[in-house]
């Protein structure tokens, strides 16, 4: 038994380590100042895919990303960790895509890879936190979806069993392939790159598919294919309160406590 697996990955600016120079003076994002990283939950999705390959070594894991050509670095990273093949979907005609246009392009690219049994992806990317692309790709391919997957419990023939991490607990589900799975932050960490694979793939240039290669309806791509428009972007302006500066002394802190008690704010 073997499975054809696609893992959706994304290179993202490291928004969780934003330095003081992350924003330009005009309020736009200074992308150059942000390091580009492998989206953390996509790494966990890759791990789940590699677990399938551990059990069924004949399986084939293809990583797929949409983005600029410099995203080759996360493809190489995925290959060094055990993926078999990587593809970048890249074209200026994808510029301005919202999640709908993005998921449409990804779905077209997945179809082009041919037969697939399982598609894995991170629950969400840290630069948008929308968690929309996974379910939207599933719908576009008319596949069922299992979101927030935490553990792969079993896979046999066309039946997979997974746990899902919910807001208020854990659910175990059984699903019939083909299927799209999004993997959540509490899933197991991805294995490290193998030293010999690091060397093997250090200079690999992944295949690049442009818009023509994925045979889309062109009007569903990029800005044209994106129903959401940004009306305006505001810099964050602090609503300033006339706050009181309390002296850092026992006496002043004591007075504050007493006045809060008198106002019945604390009791």
């Amino acid at each position, binding site marked *: 038994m073997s499975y054809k697996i696609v893992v959706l990955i994304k290179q993202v600016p490291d928004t969780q380590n*934003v330095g003081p120079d*992350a924003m330009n003076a005009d309020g736009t994002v200074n992308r150059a100042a942000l390091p580009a990283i492998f989206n953390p939950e996509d790494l966990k999705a890759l791990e789940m895919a590699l677990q399938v390959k551990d059990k069924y070594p004949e399986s084939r894991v293809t990583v797929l990303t949409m983005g600029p050509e410099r995203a080759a670095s996360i493809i190489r990273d995925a290959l060094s960790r055990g993926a078999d093949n990587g593809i970048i979907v890249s074209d200026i005609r994808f510029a301005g895509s919202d999640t*709908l246009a993005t998921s449409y392009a990804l779905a077209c690219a997945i179809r082009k890879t041919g037969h697939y049994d399982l598609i894995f992806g991170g629950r969400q990317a840290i630069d948008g936190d929308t968690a929309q692309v996974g379910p*939207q790709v599933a*719908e576009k391919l008319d596949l*069922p979806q299992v979101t927030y997957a935490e553990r792969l419990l079993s896979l046999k023939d066309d039946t997979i069993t997974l746990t899902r991490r919910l807001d208020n607990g854990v659910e175990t*589900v059984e699903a019939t392939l083909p299927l799209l799975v999004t993997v959540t932050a509490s899933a197991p960490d991805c294995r490290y790159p193998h030293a010999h694979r690091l060397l093997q793939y250090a200079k690999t240039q992944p295949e690049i598919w442009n818009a023509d290669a994925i045979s889309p309806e062109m009007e569903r791509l990029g800005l044209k294919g994106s*129903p959401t428009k940004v*009306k305006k972007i505001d810099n964050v302006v602090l609503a300033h309160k006339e*706050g009181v500066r309390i002296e850092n002394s026992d006496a002043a802190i004591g007075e504050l406590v007493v006045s809060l008690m008198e106002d019945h704010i604390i009791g």
Partner: protein
Amino acid sequence: MVLIYCELTENAQIADVSLELCTKGRQLADRLGSRLEALVCGESLNGIEKQLYPYGVDVVLKADDPRLSPYRTLPHFALLSEVIRERKPEIVLMGATCVGRDLAPRIASRLRCGLTADCTSLEIGDYEDKAKGKSYQNILYQIRPAFGGNIIATIVNPETRPQMATVREGVMKKELKDSGYKGECVTLDAGRYLKKEDEAVRIVAREIEQRKINIKNASIIVSGGYGMGSRENFGMLHQLAQALGGEVGATRAAVDAGFAEGERQIGQTGVTVRPKLYIACGISGAVQHRAGMDQSGKIISINTDPDAPINAIADYTIIGDACKVVPQLIACYNKNKK
């Protein structure tokens, strides 16, 4: 028409987040001069509509079928996507919960419409597309912090319908419209919507945990940021919270660093709170965090940095190391309490 997709709690009550959206939906519907409708999908829903009318819901659409409970993506997707096609709402609102965030994008994809996740504000206004030379009236402004919270974006979907948005629990305020509000209930024939293929995912087991930590309803919150330095130092926040009868909150950075449990996270990607008193300890005050607490009654900021953004919205600022000031606060409180 404005449509709210309602979620149910484990004991088949309408979830708070859905009632909050009904209140917001009622305001938007009034602004548009249109109806407010609510869809409830589940099992044993006798009388559930009575929970919704007081929030100003004009029509409750009810689908009652064992296949709809507990929530699974495909059966709810089949119901909601068809109901939207039949009833053509202008606006659809859903909770940014693990249910809403699973379902809403799939619906938006099927209907090829726009969706904005985790909105912190929803308004009605006009939109001009200068490039196309077109103007649109009464569009839903979907407002949310973006890009790590450094900016606030106003998103619109001028051409496609419905306009869809998700909102986290606690962001909107739940308010009764009128306890005698008269609505009508329409029972949907679930069998007409559900297909055999919708059973592709089966639930084998569910372990639902009671919420142990309830910061949403706490009237006093002692909250810590990355500046607290360690999980051990968070211990004194627990002591202060316990003394004051409050709860402990945390920023995303503090949660990511392992200082506090995820359930304590306050902010755009956590819980939104409106306590009487919010004590921010070692919190710089990134906009994502402020989005979750700036409606607090009184805010005390304790920070070594006089220029920390949190100080600008604080009623009282104490410049100093929270690890020294918090024990002083505990001592002062114990000395003065009756």
